[in-house]
């Protein structure tokens, strides 16, 4: 049973902790307000210097000297905030070598192997702005960090450094979930020429379907013509999953030779392939595909009817006339779908076709 002594001890501990919490509230508020003001002041003073460099081509030395004079956390947070918001990738390439040797940068990058994830996180964030060829090993380690937050930020660093880091990332894509694959590739593709160079040799029919699918999606997202030529050659792949990804990716490949491939895919046995082919024909505004698309609005699969109707609306002109014709036809399913899409505004058609 609880004795009075135990309760008395509990009361003392609780009272002490409450006093500590109240004191902590006061001290923390003062400290955090002071620290936030320090960073805000740093950002406010750095902004015009960066602006002068970006717009008027002023001397970058002033930016570097200013940051050197700040406490490391102020310099880091100011650069992290402003570089992400204002400085283009190309300009970051100019800024990076100048900052890389600065003592405050060295100090934060030394944390790349820290046991605390938030220090590695800051190092990865900074590497995405100032990373150079000497940092490839560290970025490679951060890409496989045990913290998902660090891994995600390290992708940005890998994108700016390219080389074997891009290969590492492309090889890891197929093992990721869809949303992660897309996000990861979007980050990587900030350096499109290097990415396309690494991607094209991977687009071969003998590659296992699960890997090929991820790389086809990446080729589609990159919209690189050379990569998409290779994708088009995979349109007759035996695996329906691969044909589905090909049809989806080809909506970014505006070449005359793509049209017959997509029309063939519009009659595929797999409804998912037919739906994506319809979507691609709409995205490419293939007027000659209007009649096959009008037939596809009568398809037995809901998604094919939906994508085909949207494609007709997206193509416009004669294709839209065909859509209206279907909406007055005898097939109830086709009539409903075409009536739905025919009533949409142009903006809605574009938006719904895109996603």
């Amino acid at each position, binding site marked *: *049973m609880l004795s*009075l002594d135990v*309760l008395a001890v509990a009361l003392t501990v609780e009272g002490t*902790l409450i006093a500590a919490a109240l004191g902590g509230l006061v001290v923390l508020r003062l400290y955090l307000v002071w620290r936030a003001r320090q960073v805000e002041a740093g950002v406010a003073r750095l902004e015009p210097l960066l602006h002068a460099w970006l717009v008027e081509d002023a001397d970058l030395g002033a930016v570097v000297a200013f940051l050197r004079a700040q406490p490391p956390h102020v310099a880091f947070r100011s650069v992290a905030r402003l570089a*992400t918001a204002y400085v283009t990738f190309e300009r970051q390439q100019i800024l990076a070598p100048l900052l890389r040797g600065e003592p405050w940068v060295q100090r934060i990058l030394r944390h790349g192997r820290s046991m605390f994830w938030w220090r590695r996180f800051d190092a990865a964030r900074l590497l995405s702005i100032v990373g150079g060829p000497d940092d490839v090993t560290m970025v490679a380690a951060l890409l496989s960090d045990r913290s998902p937050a660090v891994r995600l930020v390290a992708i940005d660093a890998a994108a700016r450094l390219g080389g074997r880091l891009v290969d590492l990332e492309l090889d890891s894509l197929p093992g990721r979930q869809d*949303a992660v694959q897309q996000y990861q590739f979007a980050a990587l593709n900030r350096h499109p020429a290097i990415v396309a160079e690494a991607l094209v040799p991977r687009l071969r029919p003998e590659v296992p379907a699960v890997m090929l699918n991820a790389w086809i999606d990446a080729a589609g997202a990159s919209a690189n013509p050379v990569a998409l030529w290779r994708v088009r050659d995979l349109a007759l792949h035996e695996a329906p999953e691969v044909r589905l990804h090909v049809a989806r990716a080809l909506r970014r490949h505006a070449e005359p030779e793509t049209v017959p491939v997509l029309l063939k895919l519009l009659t595929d046995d797999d409804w998912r392939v037919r739906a994506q082919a319809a979507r691609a024909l709409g995205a490419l505004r293939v007027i000659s595909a209007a009649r096959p698309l009008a037939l596809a609005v009568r398809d037995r699969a809901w998604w094919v009817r939906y994508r085909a109707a949207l494609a007709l609306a997206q193509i416009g002109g004669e294709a839209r006339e065909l859509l209206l014709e279907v909406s007055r036809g005898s097939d109830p399913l086709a009539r409903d779908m075409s009536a739905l899409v025919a009533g949409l505004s142009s903006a809605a058609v574009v938006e*719904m076709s895109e996603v």
Partner: protein
Amino acid sequence: MSSELTAWFVYLVTTADVAILWYMLLVNSFFALLLVLAAPQLFAHWRFGSEDVLARSLTSSAVPRVSILVPAHNEAVTIVDSLRALLTLQYPYFEVVLVNDGSTDDTMQRLLEAYDLYEVPPAVMRRLRTERVKAYYRSKTWTKLLVVDKQNGGKADSLNVGLDAARFPYVLACDADTLIEPDALLRLARPFLFDQKIAAVGGTIRVVNSCTVEEGRIIDARVDSRWLSGIQTVEYLRAFLFGRLGWNLLGGNLIISGAFGLFRRDYLTEILGYATSTVTEDFELIVRLQRYLKEQGAAAKVVFIPDPVAWTEVPTSVAVFGRQRERWHRGLISTMVAHRALIFNPRYGPTGLIAMPYFLFAELLAPVVEAVGLVITVLCTFAGVLSLRFAVFFFVAAYLFGTLLSLAAILMEEVSFHRYRRPLDTLRLVFFAFIEPFGYRQITVWFRLKAFVRYFQGDHSWGRMKREGFGAAAAPAAGVRPAA
């Protein structure tokens, strides 16, 4: 004989008293454990949610596509503002599916006028059994908006209609009276980019009463000076900042607020959507989802992250507050009864061995234990069985522990998100943390006890609620459960 009876009585009440003391010790220790588990996670989310990292996500076209489901029943006062706030969220790809659940006020009329709606054919794949849908509408001005007008069937039924009409693989369920911060959806989608298997993500709900709201946006976050809403503000901070965060490491959450949760749509359709037979469809859904995931051997988790924020009104009158708490507890009872097979069942892992027993003993039975303990302690003290000194020490210890937990939550808020900028608001939070055990707790216990009576009477009603609009003292239509 009489002295023998007295001895038995003394033995019984002292045994019960000791059992209650141990119960409180265990439950409070568990709260302390949640606090310890939550602190490092709060720090992690705060760091990762920093603006520049978020800005990068925002510019990416690769974020998951999300359908926002908004059930609305008699929301004419706030619907236009709430919907505009949703339609202007900072997120690349989303749609809003608003389901008008047979409103008897002019909700539908206001929508038709404000958003220039036109009727479209029912080209929707129906998978779930729901009340009859009267019509689908699209907006000529807002391409992201789909409005579904249906016969009244309740919130769960409306969400099921929304699930069917949604186009995207992820769905966000939110209340029409909830204000979602512009970047909240982007933050909520973050766990899906971490390459972890996630079935659902919940975000934080905060109290909007007394905040300045303009066009559906929180301009100035304030703590209400009125005792009832002020104490609820502390209660929400405590529940969200360490209660639910702590559960992430203990086998997953059993509550994702119906007002603000992001789900993988395929999981929701596989479990046939929301249950229409319960008055707390959000809690029931998550328990059923966790059950389904375990039975299927799926590794996907239900997680909570603290930095996505939505704001909701809390009741300012005791009567409305009572109806809300009574309904929540009734829903808890019915869900625990419906899923009793999970309790202490090792097949369901931490959900069966930790979360469900916790909800049974520390949530469902808490008002009973608290009421019995209060009565016994008073009786024993007056009968001279328990020393007055011991009773006073015990009450003060329990009081201080509760206050300490509240102060810890306020401290965590100050260190991390710091939404309340004025020192006066922090002072108010501290004040309400100290007065919460006097009156508020006892009122809550009373309404939760009433829930047992109404449950056994077979009552399935929600109770009448009245809405006055943002910026004024108002009661929520559904409210958001803040329990740990």
